[in-house]
């Protein structure tokens, strides 16, 4: 153990790991070896193994605060809480998805508006969502269309069309018609209450985060949007199971 600790202090992590493993082979209930093996794996960036060994150590001595703290660091690094949070959101999504209209009627609901506004709430114009928005435009057909972005961005080049900037303070906002929100990253609630859209659709990326899906659907529902639609940019079996939407492929 002494040699292993020395090796670990010197940064010789591979050697330290081998020495801890040897110590565990002799005594599988060696708390210190299991704990420090976990820490050495954590230092090597191997978080999955780090989690395994620190959890095994804590099974032996659950009261050791240093090990609890290390477990906390590893769980953070491995993204455990975000993963568990996503699981929680996945369980909540079907309950929220009841607020959505039947995807079979989504295109007709958007077509029936005199004017359609596509608002980019995604990170950049490189996003595959932008291509999906263009395909949506093709599928909708003959409706007057305006593009908006809540931030500065090079959307014009990607779209080959003018993009207006939403600026609620200056009063630059879509006012009526149908609204398609492209992406889930940005909240629209700071200005959406000022617009009276006839239908609102969220265009979500394939593999969307449950957390963002849940949040955006709820926000729009809270605004009292009744004709609320979910579209997916591409095929997404997992999301379709928990929140059905129309695929724009």
């Amino acid at each position, binding site marked *: 153990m002494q040699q292993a600790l020395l090796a670990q202090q010197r940064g010789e992590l591979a050697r330290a790991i081998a020495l801890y493993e040897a110590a565990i082979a002799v005594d599988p209930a060696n708390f210190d070896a299991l704990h420090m093996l976990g820490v050495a794996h954590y230092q090597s960036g191997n978080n999955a193994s780090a989690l395994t060994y620190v959890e095994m150590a804590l099974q032996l001595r659950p009261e050791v*605060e240093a090990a609890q703290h290390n477990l906390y660091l590893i769980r953070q690094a491995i993204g455990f*809480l975000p993963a568990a949070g996503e699981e*929680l959101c996945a369980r909540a999504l079907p309950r929220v998805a009841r607020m959505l209209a039947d995807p079979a009627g989504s295109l007709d609901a958007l077509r029936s508006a005199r004017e359609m506004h596509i608002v980019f709430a995604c990170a950049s114009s490189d996003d595959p969502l932008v291509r999906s928005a263009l395909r949506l435009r093709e599928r909708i057909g003959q409706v007057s269309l305006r593009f908006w972005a809540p931030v500065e961005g090079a959307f014009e080049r990607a779209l080959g069309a003018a993009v207006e900037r939403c600026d609620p303070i200056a009063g630059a906002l879509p006012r009526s018609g149908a609204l398609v929100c492209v992406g889930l990253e940005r*909240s629209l*609630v700071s200005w959406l209450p000022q617009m009276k859209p006839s239908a609102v659709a969220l265009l979500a990326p394939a593999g969307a985060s449950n957390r963002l899906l849940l949040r955006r659907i709820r926000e729009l529902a*809270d605004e009292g949007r009744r004709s609320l639609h979910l579209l997916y940019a591409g095929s997404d079996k997992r999301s379709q199971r928990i929140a059905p939407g129309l695929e724009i492929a």
Partner: protein
Amino acid sequence: MSELTVRDRDGSVRVIAFYLPQYHPIPENDAWWGKGFTEWNNVVRARPWFEGHWQPHQPADLGYYDLRAPEVRAQQAALAREHGIDGFCYYWYWFNGTRLLHRPLDEVLATGEPDFPFCVCWANENWTRRWDGLDEEILLGQHYAAEDRVRFIDDLIPVFRDRRYIAVDRKPLLLVYRPFAIPDMAAHLAAWRERCAAAGIASPYVAGVKQTHEEDPTQLGLDAAVEFPPIGQRARPITNTLHGLDAGFEGGVIDYGHMAADFLTQPRRAWIQFPAVTPMWDNTARRGQRAIVLDGSQPELFEIWLEYALQYARSRCKGDERLVFVNAWNEWAEGNHLEPDLRYGPQFLEAVRNAKTRTAQGLPVRPSWAEMIAEAHEVWCDGDIRHVGPRSTPEVSVVMPVYNHETFLPRTLASIAQQDELQIELIAIDDGSTDRSVQVIESFAAKHAIAVTIVRQENAGAYAALNRGLTLARAPVIALANSDDVYAPGRLAALTSALDHRDADLAFSGTEFIDDADVPVGLHPYATTLRAHIARLATEDLLHVLIRANVAVSSGNLVIRKALIERIGGFAALSICHDWDFLLAASYHARIAHVPELLYRYRLHAANTYSGGTLQGYFESDILLGRFFDAIAQHPALADAGALRRFVDHARAVGLGAYVPPPLRDKA
């Protein structure tokens, strides 16, 4: 004392909401903060600090109320009762004999209205200018002088006598907000007991509010601990991921779901602990740019968190100790309230009622054989079940739930067909597959001289498919199979022989972990951990190993005498751990044979790189271990005192001491 004491012996869980008796002016606040000050002054001035930040919170149904009005208190109680809240926990501001914010409770006591259960929590923090209990500028401090112990309880004794006062174990429930701030808690408890005895009432059941996950107030002699989310949470802030964050913001933003998950994945504690949930939290109203904000709270997420909390309380506590707290009923300046607001209306309250309704049936239990047969009859019509091939009596029935595994089924089926030392039948229950799984099985049935029964049903989960499939088995021995795993050659012959030669009712083999391409998996963390547990079977008792992990790995590794199923029933409605639960339960009734050869090939899919540690997995393993440990004093394998003592010592050593029933903890 309270009628609740009796009513709640039926296993239901009481939900108690923390209640802030503010919202009326008092001379002290007039002096400290300005004439007429109430919490509403803070609430209305809050504003958002980032895109999507929900502020200010504006009250709906009850308006900006004044708690001096009895009709407001009546409305609150009516709303709470209607939505499944069983009581309020009023903060009791008591500073060395001086009480603050006492008028609402005093009037509740004096008038007998509203007729709604309550208890109190001694808010024993210093009263400061900071609102969050940190001692920056103390306006009114706690001294904990010896004579105050007596004065404190003397002031409470008349309150405890109220017929509405909430009791646990026939004792009035008293919460202490910061028990660790009290320098001599034992002396306080002794004084309280003495005064209560002298007054002829039961001494209080004292629960301490936790400031961190690990804090154990029962060390101080208290009866229980109470969680108090979000206090103590350890999720990483998401502040730097927010859009439109005001440059002046110096606070922290935490994701609501991360925080809930942090509370839900805490290990079972050896002390009695009441779970708590919070609908939301955002103290922008008090702290402005230095606020702590839980972002992304929604009624549906709250509802699911509360469902878990209710089930945890049911599983971990007994009798009327089954309590769940909600922080809070009306902490409007902490953006933390069940009371309706303009954005969500009564949806958080409705979430409480929904969660209680959904969990009213209690924890999932294993169905008896009779229940399994009745359920299968109810779900399946004759037309759903098709038999193909010979109908001679088989020696082994292979029962296989199938769900969307068309890619792996040919390999699975071939490995079953290969078990030709025995006469077998295959019972495949298609659990609502949307791929070509059923066609793959049909074409297999057409080509092989094996009796195949195919049943189709809507997706109901593996446990339901297993239970129903078991009722169709005709052979005296049943082998379970997963539709993506592989039987090694000679598996069924070896395991049925183990049943016979070792006089066992249940057998399982060693497991080889394989990937999607059938290649053995090396250093996968899940496989590594399980292999380490399985290796212990060579030297340790099966039960010692089985409480740490499901060393059979999956239901597909189980070979069971049908008579055992008929005797003890099938699988509980647990989506992840039904197999582990079954094994632990079976250990009470069956001799279990382990065959170390790697005769079971369990597939780890590319997608699940880290399959341990899901919320549902935490929850299920906690309830099944709780259930297993509850009766260990009656376990046949632990019948002699030495074996039981060794088992309890072992459970403690591996961190499962919290599951050992209290009477055994001291003896062993």
